[in-house]
């Protein structure tokens, strides 16, 4: 901890890019002085070395450039598509994210969505709650999970945990990544998303949203995935051509989808609300009590390390 200057507040200043969605820990509030960037006066803005991003609202070049002393941007999320990384690079600003804190819960949720879509769990549950089992009889047959070919786009920390889980269901796993992983990676590499989709029954999106990956799932990829295929997205809505996805679901070009993220949250295409071959979710794949506690711990660890001049816990290579 930096020693307090005489007469000054002992706690180091941290600007908030937006109000915090998940609250701040009492520990953090005890250690740092948080000020909302929009409320900061000129002196505070000039002094701020750290910007904490406790949500997904955009962190623009404009905001970054109003903070001349800024050295660190620390996000609560794994994804950084809402942060102007070019501006950070230009200014030599370090960025930390959630690291691997969310990976396990995201991977668990992917499996939950895969089973829910293929086995129609959510739809069956709704069927029973309406009292339809007694009146209309059994819900239509679903399809097996075990043995389905799983293709994962992005074999990072989330993707590799998904792979391990679905492999235990007896699913053969393949992936696409910017480059093949070194041996002993047991999964088959495909050089393009389209080729991966053509060889998959379930296509899981677990990669970051960047300029290269924006709308990487387009009509061509969905046609390759095929009428029996299922798309599961816990990455970012922007990875998928959303209007095209709706058309492909409606036309039976693909068989179903499990969607945790959308292009324009919390709004989503109304056509999806009536489809029973999709499972919808409110961007909550990461959202467990345990992971939120964990990520706040990661953030406070990064902030402490920064102010103490120690190595950061989860810096991101820009």
């Amino acid at each position: 901890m930096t020693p307090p200057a005489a007469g000054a507040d002992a706690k180091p200043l941290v600007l908030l890019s937006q109000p915090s969605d998940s609250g701040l820990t009492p520990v953090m509030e005890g250690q740092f002085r948080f000020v909302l960037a929009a409320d900061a006066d000129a002196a505070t803005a000039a002094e701020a070395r750290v910007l904490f991003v406790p949500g997904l609202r955009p962190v623009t070049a404009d905001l970054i450039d109003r903070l001349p002393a800024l050295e660190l941007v620390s996000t609560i999320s794994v994804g950084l598509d809402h942060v102007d990384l070019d501006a950070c690079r230009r200014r030599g600003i370090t960025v930390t994210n959630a690291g691997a804190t969310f990976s396990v819960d995201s991977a668990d949720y992917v499996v939950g969505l895969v089973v829910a879509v293929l086995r129609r769990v959510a739809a069956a549950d709704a069927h029973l709650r309406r009292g339809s089992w007694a009146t209309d009889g059994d819900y239509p047959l679903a399809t097996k999970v075990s043995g389905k070919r799983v293709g994962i786009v992005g074999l990072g920390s989330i993707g590799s945990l998904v792979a391990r889980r679905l492999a235990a269901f007896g699913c053969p796993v393949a992936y696409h990544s910017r480059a093949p992983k070194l041996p002993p990676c047991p999964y088959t590499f495909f050089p393009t998303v389209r080729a991966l989709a053509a060889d998959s029954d379930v296509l899981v999106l677990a990669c970051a949203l960047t300029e290269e990956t924006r709308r990487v799932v387009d009509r061509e990829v969905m046609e390759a995935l095929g009428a029996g295929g299922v798309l599961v997205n816990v990455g970012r809505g922007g990875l998928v051509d959303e209007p095209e996805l709706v058309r492909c679901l409606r036309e039976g070009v693909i068989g179903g989808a499990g969607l945790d993220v959308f292009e324009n949250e919390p709004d989503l295409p109304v056509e999806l609300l009536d489809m029973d071959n999709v499972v919808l979710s409110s961007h909550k794949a990461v959202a467990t009590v345990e992971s939120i506690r964990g990520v706040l711990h990661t953030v406070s660890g990064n902030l402490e390390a920064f102010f103490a001049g120690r190595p950061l816990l989860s810096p991101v290579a820009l």
Partner: protein
Amino acid sequence: MASAATGAAKPGLLLLRRTDATFIAALRARFRVHDFYASGAALPDYLTAAAAEPDPPRTALVVAGGAILVDAAFLDAVPSVGCVVTTGAGVDHVDLAQCARRGAGEIFSVDVADHAVGLLIGVLRRVAAADRYVRAGLWPAQGDYPLTTKLSGKRVGIIGLGSIGSQIAKRLQAFGCAISYHSREPKAFAPYRYLPDAHALAADSDALIVACALNDATRRIVGRCVLDALGPNGVLVNIARGVNVDEQELVAALQEGRIAGAGLDVFQNEPHVPPELRDMDNVVLTAHEAVFTEESRANLQELMIGNLEAFFSGKPLLTPVLPP
């Protein structure tokens, strides 16, 4: 192997389950089928008529969960029956002691294990509840769905470590869950911790999964004591039989928050689901479908025929059930 030369050369089969046209055709190609449901006869008359034939049937194809019990009365009515082939993991509808000198085939499916894990994730992570939330337009209106709880690393207790229980354990191990189990006896090669009774297992588990057969020892094996031992942060998953759980106690425990949630594929009185459950967000309800997928139905049919053919050619059955 049954000859297809003349109808009389085909071995007889009592068919006591509803099925589809494809399967009936496959059976008729190989066997002389006595179709109970098509006959419209009462069971005793149907059995007597079959037994009175010059070459009475030596096999019966039945199904779990149906009304027909293969008990002493059944077997006395058709003493020629030497092989009972059933589907559904349970054999509570077949009196195994009575069948002791005869072979019985039983099958299971990895689909049940897949479904059990899906129910567990569904309860803990509120997958179906979030789907309803979004469809009701509550995301823009009320904001994010509340936080749920992590699955990975939770302590899982499995009641019944047969084929289904083992497949469930294998999947949940990949989630880093600590697996314990209770069974009639410890399994020699199971790499999981054994507890001597369901109460002790529940006390030491965050999630309790019922995957055992239904018999006298397991009827209501999950009752008030076990539910209280599971506790207010614990969840129950039942993919066995509704009657393995005391359903009234379960409903009360859920209503009173004495357990945290439940994933249920089976109920005491299907297709009736206790109405109190229908409004709960911390339960997931499915219509006894854990085993039923398009693929498993096709596999089941192949396996049933395989067992029958093995019996008639004097070969070992594919999936025999050992008598108790």
